[in-house]
């Protein structure tokens, strides 16, 4: 207990709040008063059945799902392989057609050209032309969006810088590692400055730096009012960036709601104590808890997550290395994607600075903030009692 925080969790069995705990099968519907104009994506009772050559039903990949995504939201489709995430995304892009139900994307059919002009799509695999260079690939997709030469040149420059691949601009995509091809895929998805960004397994094949960068990018896009739909089976990715998620299994939405709603365990509390608490005071606290609650609390040291630790190591090494062999780490966001009002990512999610210690202290909250938070959590007007 020489450094960092002491934190422990304990059961709040005194507070009888079991009913409010989120159950896996609970579907938390969106507010019914949601403004239709703010709905970027709506899916209503969508079913997708794959058929065989003789048109006999083979697989029901999506089974009566309904959801909507609002402007500026980061929405996650979460589920194991084969749960219907990619099929849903492909229907939203007009690449597959629903067997039943209705889909609207930006107020139009998913197959409407005017809607597609405002959508960026990163597929789960990098379906790029292997004989084109990075630059040619981005020019190609820029042309499909009818961007002028000057616009394409500017955006490509910024995107290549953003994904750290300026040095590979003239290398053909077929030579790239999966991660590098993925970055080009990401760049093509953003070349039209889309209003709706659909990312299918966006961090698949990326190194932790790339993952962090993609997550930062998603947050930046959301801050700019862009809507992001991402699918993943990497729970940490979804938790890090999504405002709301839908958990799919067997083609059905098993749970849907905000991350906070779904993950909050309202029957349990976590208490964070100040740094360098003397052992005797800690013992007093524990004793008080034992006496008041009649139960033994859990206690351990907090840990930084592996991602944060990894990023710090790489950041340190970055200052010692000169020639990049793969992608160049970059915290930049393309200018046209980042508005002047863009706020920096939250401290807990930002890449650590080179000088940062391995486990950086989290800013300690002021006592009144602690009391206020406890009051909200427990509903007790006087938490000291």
């Amino acid at each position: 207990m020489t450094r960092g925080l002491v934190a422990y969790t304990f059961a709040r069995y005194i507070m009888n709040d079991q009913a409010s705990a989120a159950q896996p099968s609970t579907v938390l519907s969106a507010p019914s008063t949601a403004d239709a104009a703010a709905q970027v994506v709506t899916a209503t009772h969508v079913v997708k059945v794959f058929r065989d050559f003789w048109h006999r039903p083979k697989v029901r990949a999506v089974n009566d799902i309904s959801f909507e995504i609002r402007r500026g939201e980061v929405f996650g489709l979460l589920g194991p392989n084969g749960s219907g995430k990619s099929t849903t995304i492909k229907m939203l892009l007009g690449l597959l057609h629903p067997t039943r139900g209705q889909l609207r994307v930006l107020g139009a059919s998913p197959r409407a050209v005017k809607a597609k002009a405002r959508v960026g799509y990163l597929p789960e695999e990098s379906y790029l032309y292997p004989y084109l260079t990075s630059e040619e690939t981005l020019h190609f997709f820029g042309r499909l969006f009818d961007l002028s030469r000057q616009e394409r040149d500017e955006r490509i420059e910024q995107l290549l810088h953003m994904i750290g691949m300026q040095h590979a601009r003239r290398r053909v995509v077929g030579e790239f590692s999966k991660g590098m091809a993925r970055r080009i895929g990401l760049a093509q998805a953003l070349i039209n400055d889309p209003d709706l960004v659909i990312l299918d397994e966006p961090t698949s094949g990326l190194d932790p730096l790339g993952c962090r960068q993609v997550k930062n990018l998603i947050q930046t896009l959301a801050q700019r009012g862009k809507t992001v739909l991402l699918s993943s089976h990497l729970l940490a990715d979804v938790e890090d960036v999504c405002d709301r998620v839908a958990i799919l299994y067997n083609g059905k939405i098993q749970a849907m709601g905000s991350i906070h709603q779904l993950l909050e365990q309202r029957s349990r509390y976590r208490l964070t104590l100040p740094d360098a608490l003397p052992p005797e005071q800690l013992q007093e606290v524990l004793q008080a808890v034992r006496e008041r609650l009649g139960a033994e609390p859990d206690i351990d040291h907090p840990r930084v997550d592996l991602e944060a630790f990894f990023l710090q190591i790489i950041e340190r090494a970055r200052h010692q290395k000169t020639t990049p062999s793969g992608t160049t780490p970059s915290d930049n966001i393309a200018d046209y994607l980042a508005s002047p009002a863009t706020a920096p990512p939250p401290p807990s999610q930002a890449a650590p600075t080179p000088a940062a210690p391995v486990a950086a202290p989290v800013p300690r909250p002021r006592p009144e903030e602690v009391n206020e938070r406890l009051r909200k959590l427990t509903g007790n007007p006087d938490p000291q009692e």
Partner: protein
Amino acid sequence: MQAVWAIVLISMRNAVRSKIVLVLLFFLLLTLIGLPLTVRGDGTLSGHVQLLLRYTLGLALLILSLATVWASCAAVSSDIRDRQIQLVISKPVRAVQVWLGQWLGVSLLNGGLWVLCILVTYGALRWTTRPAMLSAEDQETLATEILVAQRRVTPRARDLQAEVAREYQAARARGEWPPETPTSQIWPVIERHVSARANAVAPGGQNRWVFQLPRRVPPDRSLILRYRFAVSVLDMGAIGGIWRAGPPNDPRRFRESVRVAPLAWHSIAIPPEWVAADSTLTVEFANVHERPLMVLFDPDNDLRLMVYEGGFLANLMRAGLSLLFHLAFLSAIGITAGTFFSIPVAALTSFYLLLLLNAGRFVRRLATREVSLADTTDAGMLEQVVAAVTQGIYRILDIVIRPVYAENPLDFIAVGEWIGWGEVGYQFVVKIGLYGTILLGLGVWHLARKEVALPA
């Protein structure tokens, strides 16, 4: 339009960088240079030109046609298989832009290769027939008969219907045919017989044909009568005869004695002054062979009067352009097939369609009942129904195929025959304008409805 050009560029870049174009270019040049070096012609100047234009360039065209069909089938189909189309279709791109982009990409690339083939062949032709390589006589033949563009004129058809009717009545009266045999079967046989007799030249006799020329011929260019004939006796050597041209009652008219082998093409030059004021030329052949035999001409195929129309290079370009449209038509077939099927199935379908197109003449004969799959005279009800259905299918096929079936222009330029702009325009209108649009519509209709992200 920018999206179309983006797809055009990408399909061309893919073809070039995947080395398909390089390999194709290698085989084309190998054919164009290697074949004339390794295959000997018949030793004549005409044979040499035919070897270069008809066989060498024809083989290059065949290779390019096969490559075009394959490449166009693969253009959309491989994009679907490799899923690149998912990134394209998810952009604001219409199916028609995808189809047009791929079609233009394949067509421009193969068009470029085709133009290169023509230039290489023309260069080889000029190099191997340069003045230093030819005698003065050969140079004259080359300039007047081979490396020219001449309009083909066939003899004016004779009205033989009265004679055919007489023969028919006589044959019926003699009971040469069973009474139940329909007239439709007997009449063509008698017609052919009468026509053959009318165009035969008996021993010591002569026959006459009239050519209606399309317009006044150039005064400084001879008319070339190209002819061949059969004889009634097999294993004969050269046959003696006399050609005359000009007004029949003019004692000074053109005359040339010949002694030539049957069943081979020969030619004589007729001065243009023997053309009558009404733009007709009367030609006679006298059978003066020492042994009695019949000389037989098929007027539709064995007698051609060649009238100078223009230079060879322009004619070659027109032929090249016609074939370019043909290659673009093949691309359209392949691209549309590729939107429906996987590469091998699309290629198989396209090659089958090509086979049907090339069998246009055969299909026409089947459709017009010159050849019948079932003898309906003795057939039962079922056979008659099958024959009628089959006949119907052949007629529909004939209607579909006839507009696009055409003789190979290389066969024409190899013998110095003129290909008019009208023919080039017809090829464009039919193969690109009409059939190309139909194929475009089919392909776009299917591509717009196709689910391009179905699981494999």
